[in-house]
C-alpha cells in the first residue's frame, strides 16, 4: 500500500517520504523519521514556530497581553482559535480572548519596528492598567530585519514596571510549531520562572499541572481529579494560567505533564535547577486515568494513594455506565488519527475503553521521543505516519476505510465529503472537555454522534441507490 500511495511523488520526494511511514510489525525496531523539514509543494498540516509559541504556549496565560509583533495576519489567525478557556473579566482580568498587534506597515519593514514596539507596550499598559505582564511574539519580518526586541523589552519592563518577555518565535525558524514550543519554554525560563516567591511555604502536596491548555475546559477537568486526590494544584501551564503562577512555579513538589511535546523542556529545566521531579500522565478515558492516578499517587504518601483509590472507586460506576451505553454502538469500529502534541497516543486508551481500535496514527510535528512512546501503545499492523501530507492521508483513508477519522480543521471536510465520520481532535470539534472523568462521557457521546449519525445515510440520492441495486 505504501509504495502505491507514494508513487505519485517525484523520485526525491518519494524517497524522503518513505522514511516517515511505517507499519508496525511484531518485533520491529520501530524507527520512523521525524522532526525534519516539510517537503516544499506538498500539503502539510504543520504550522510554524509562531503558532507553537504564541498560539499554544503563551496565548492561554490570561493576565498577560501577548503582542503579535509584525504584520496583522499572524495575530488575526491565531486569535481565539485554540479554544483556551480562561476565567476572569475580559480586558481586566483576562486578555486571552483578545488580539493585540503592532501591525507592521511598509515603513516598519524599512526603518525597523523597535520604536513602534515600545509605543505599543506603553499604550497597552495605559489602556489596560491591570495587565500583569507582556509577551512579544515576533513574526517573520521582525527577525529578518534584525530588530532588537530584547533590548526594547528590557527598557520597557523598567518603564512600565511589568515583566516583559521577548519571544523569538519567527515563523521561519525551525520546521514546525515544535521549535516554537521550545522557544516559548526558554522564554518562560529566562523571564518569568523563579522571579517571584510566594509568601507561604511549599506544601507537601503542591504540584503544577503542565501542558494542559484548557481546550474546552480540559485543564479544569484535570485539575478536579488532582484536587480530589488531595493534591494542591498551584498553577496550570498554561491553560487559564497566570503570570504569578508562572513566576512562582519553582515552588512545588512535583510537576505533572500532560502534553510532553510542548513542555518537556521546562520540566527538565526545573528538575535540573530546582530539583523538582516530573512525570507524564494521561487523563483520557477511565483506564488511562486510573493508571495515571496510581502513578501520580505513588509519588506521594499513603494519604494521597488512599485518596487516589477513592477517586477511582468513586468514578468507576459512572464511567462503566458510559461504557455500557456507548460500547455496544462503537465496538470494533476502526479509527485513524492524525493530530499534534500528545493526542495521537494519549487518546488511544479512551478509544479502546469504548471498544474501538486505532488502526492508524501519526503526528504533525513529533520528535523521536514521541514515536518511542507511541509504538508500544499500538497493535500490530497499525499504520504510523509522520508529517503526513494531505495526499497520503486521503489515500490511507480511501484504502483502509476507517469508521472514524480524528484530525484537524484542515482535514475535517475532506473526509466529511468522502463520507467518513470525523471529529476534530485538536479542538474537540467545539465540544469538550475530553480530559478527566468530566471529559470521558463527552468524548464517548461525541464519537458515537460522529460514527452513528443518521445524516451519513443521506449521502446517496435514492434514485441513484436504486440504480446501483
Amino acid at each position, binding site marked *: 500500500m505504501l509504495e502505491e500511495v507514494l508513487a505519485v511523488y517525484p523520485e526525491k520526494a518519494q524517497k524522503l517520504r518513505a522514511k516517515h511511514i511505517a507499519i508496525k510489525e511484531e518485533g520491529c525496531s520501530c524507527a520512523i523519521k521525524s522532526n525534519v523539514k516539510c517537503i516544499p*509543494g*506538498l500539503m*502539510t498540516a*504543520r504550522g510554524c514556530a509562531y503558532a507553537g509559541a504564541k498560539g499554544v504556549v503563551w496565548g492561554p496565560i490570561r493576565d498577560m497581553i501577548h503582542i503579535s509583533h509584525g504584520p496583522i495576519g499572524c495575530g488575526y489567525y491565531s*486569535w481565539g482559535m485554540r479554544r483556551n478557556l480562561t476565567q476572569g473579566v475580559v480586558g481586566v482580568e483576562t486578555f486571552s480572548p483578545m488580539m493585540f498587534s503592532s501591525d507592521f506597515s511598509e515603513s516598519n519593514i524599512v526603518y525597523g519596528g523597535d520604536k513602534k514596539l515600545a509605543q505599543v507596550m506603553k*499604550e497597552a*499598559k495605559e489602556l489596560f492598567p*491591570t495587565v500583569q505582564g507582556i509577551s512579544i511574539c515576533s513574526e517573520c519580518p521582525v527577525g529578518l530585519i534584525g530588530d532588537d526586541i530584547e533590548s526594547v523589552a528590557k527598557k520597557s519592563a523598567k518603564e512600565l514596571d511589568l515583566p516583559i518577555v521577548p519571544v523569538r518565535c519567527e515563523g521561519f525558524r525551525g520546521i514546525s510549531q515544535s521549535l516554537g514550543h521550545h522557544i516559548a519554554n526558554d522564554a518562560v525560563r529566562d523571564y518569568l520562572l523563579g522571579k517571584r516567591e510566594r509568601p507561604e511555604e511549599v506544601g507537601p502536596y503542591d504540584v503544577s499541572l503542565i501542558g494542559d491548555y484548557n481546550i474546552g475546559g480540559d485543564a479544569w477537568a484535570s485539575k478536579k481529579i488532582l484536587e480530589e486526590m488531595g493534591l494542591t494544584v498551584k498553577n496550570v501551564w498554561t491553560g487559564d494560567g497566570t503570570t504569578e503562577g508562572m513566576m512562582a512555579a519553582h515552588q512545588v513538589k512535583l510537576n505533572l505533564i500532560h502534553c510532553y511535546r510542548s513542555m518537556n523542556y521546562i520540566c527538565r529545566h526545573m528538575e535540573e535547577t530546582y530539583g523538582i521531579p516530573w512525570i507524564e500522565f494521561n487523563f483520557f478515558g477511565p483506564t488511562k486515568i486510573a493508571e495515571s492516578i496510581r502513578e501520580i499517587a505513588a509519588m506521594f504518601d499513603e494519604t494521597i494513594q488512599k485518596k487516589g483509590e477513592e477517586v477511582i472507586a468513586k468514578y468507576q460506576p459512572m464511567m462503566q455506565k458510559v461504557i455500557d451505553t456507548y460500547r455496544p454502538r462503537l465496538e470494533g469500529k476502526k479509527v485513524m488519527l492524525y493530530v499534534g502534541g500528545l493526542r495521537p497516543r494519549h487518546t488511544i486508551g479512551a478509544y479502546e475503553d469504548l471498544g474501538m481500535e486505532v488502526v492508524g496514527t501519526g503526528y504533525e510535528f513529533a520528535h523521536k521521543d514521541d514515536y518511542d512512546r507511541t509504538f508500544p501503545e499500538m497493535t500490530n499492523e497499525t499504520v504510523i505516519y509522520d508529517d503526513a501530507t494531505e495526499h497520503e492521508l486521503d489515500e490511507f483513508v480511501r484504502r483502509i476505510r476507517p469508521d472514524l477519522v480524528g484530525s484537524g480543521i*484542515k482535514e475535517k471536510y475532506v473526509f466529511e465529503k468522502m463520507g467518513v465520520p470525523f471529529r476534530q481532535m485538536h479542538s474537540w470539534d467545539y465540544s469538550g472537555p475530553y480530559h478527566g472523568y468530566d471529559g470521558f462521557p463527552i468524548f464517548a457521546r461525541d464519537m458515537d454522534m460522529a460514527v452513528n449519525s443518521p445524516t451519513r445515510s443521506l*449521502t446517496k440520492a435514492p434514485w441513484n441507490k436504486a440504480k446501483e441495486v
Partner: protein
Amino acid sequence: MSKAESCPTSNCATTCTTSCAPAGDTQAVLDWMATEEYKEKNFAREALVINPARTCQPYGAMLCALGIEGCLPFLHGSQGCAAYFRSALTRHVREPIAMVSDSMTEDAAVFGGQANLIEGLKNAYATYKPSIIGMFSSCMAEVIGDDMKSFIINARTQGAVPEDFPIAYANTPSFVGSHITGYDNMLKGLLNSLADTRNGKWTNGRLYVVPGFDLYAGNLREYKRMIKAMGIYMTMLPDPTETLDSPNTGEYNMYQPGTTMAELADALNASGFLFLQKYSTTGTQKFVKNVQKIATETVTMPIGVQNTDAFLMTLQQMTGKAIPAELEAERGRAVDAAVDAHQYIHGKRFALYGDPDLLLGLVGFLMEIGGMPVHIVCSNGNDAFTKEMEALLATSQYGAEGKVYSGKDLWHMRSLLLTDPVDMLIGDTHGKQIAKDAKVPLARIGYFMTDRVHLHRQPIVGYQGAINLITMLANIFIDEYDRNCPSERFEMLR
C-alpha cells in the same frame, strides 16, 4: 481634565502617569473603561492595534486563486502561513480548502527561496495535478526580496513544470493593505499572467463579472442567477462559489468548478467588465479600464433594494438587455418585506464594521428601511472610502448621526458602543465579545463567521438578500424583546 480628578479611586496620586484605573476592583476598572475619558485615551492610540476587522493580503489572494477551475493556490513562503489561511477559510465555510506552500525556513531566509519554489512547483505539479497554479507571496518572501517572476522562469527551464504550464503570480506583502488588497493583486496577476492580449476591437460578447472579496457562496449564486435571468452571456471572474459550498456526494474532489482556463484566457476580449465591489478591486479596475480599454462599470455592492436596482440598471445599460418581469416581481417582494417589517427597524441605531464595500452596501440598505447607521468602523478603509461613506450618509436624514472611523479597530468600536449606545451591532464573529460587553445583539454579517453555521449560504445581495437581511434584523430585535421584556408585556403578537 486632570488625571487625579478623573481617577475613579482616591488612592491614585496626581503623579500617576500611565494609568488612573484602580487596581484590584474589577467593576471600577470596567466602569472606567466605559467612560469618555477612556474613549479619548483609546482613540489617542497610535501604534497598538486591538481586535482588528481585517487580515493580511495572501488570504484574499488565496480566495481569488480558488475561483479558477483546477487552480492550486501556492504560497511562496512559510508553511505556517498556508496552514493559517486554510484553517481560517475552512472555519468560515466548513469546506476543504486546498493550498500548498513551498515551506520556506531559515535556509531560505539566508539564501532566498528559489530552491524551495522550484522544488515546490515540481512536487505540487506531480502530486496534485493542477491545471494552473496561482502563486502569491508571504511577508517573509517579500522582506527578503524574492523575485517570483524569474524563479518561475528558472523552474520551467529546469523542468519542474512543463514550459507551457500556466502559472500566475502576484506579490502580496502582508505589511501592505489587507486581504482585499491581496484579492485585487492576485486578480490582476491572473489577468497579467494568463489572459491573452486583447484582440483589437473584437470581443467575445461576454460580460465578465467580478464579485470582489466575498465569502458568501449564496451571494455568488445570487449574482449568477440574476444575471442569467436577464439573458446575459456572462463569466464570473473569479468564481469560487463551488469551492465555498460544494455538494456532499461521498467523494472528495480537490478541485471544484470555477472560472475555466479558457474563460480566463479570453478575459481581455470581454465585451465589458462589471465590478460588484469597488475597494477590493481597485487595481484590477484600473488595469481593465485604463490599460486594456475595456468597457468597465463598478457598482456599490448590491445590498438592499436601491443598490440592487442600480446593479440591474447597470447590467441593462451595459448589455442592452431588459430587466425581466421575474426580477421586477422579486423587487416587489423585497419592497413588501421592507414595508411589512420596517416598524421593527425604523429609527433603530446601528453600529457596523467590516470591509469597505460591504459597509457601503449595508449603510445604503439600512437607511432605505429607516435604520440609522451611527458608528461605522472600517479597519481597512482609506480616505477615498471615508469620503464616499460620508457622502452616502449625507444623502439621507437617517444618516445624520453616522460617523466613519477608517483604520480603527474593534476596541475603538467598544468605546463607541459604551459611550454612545446603539440598538444593534452588525459585524462578524469577532464582534461578539464587545457586543456582549455593550449588551447589544450582534447581527452576523461579514466575512469571518466561525461561531454560527451556514450563514454564508444565504445571500445578502440582490432582492432576495434584502429580504434575508430584513428578516434577520427584525427577528433579532423581536427575539431580544421577547427575552428581556417584563412578563406583563409578553404577548403572542409582535
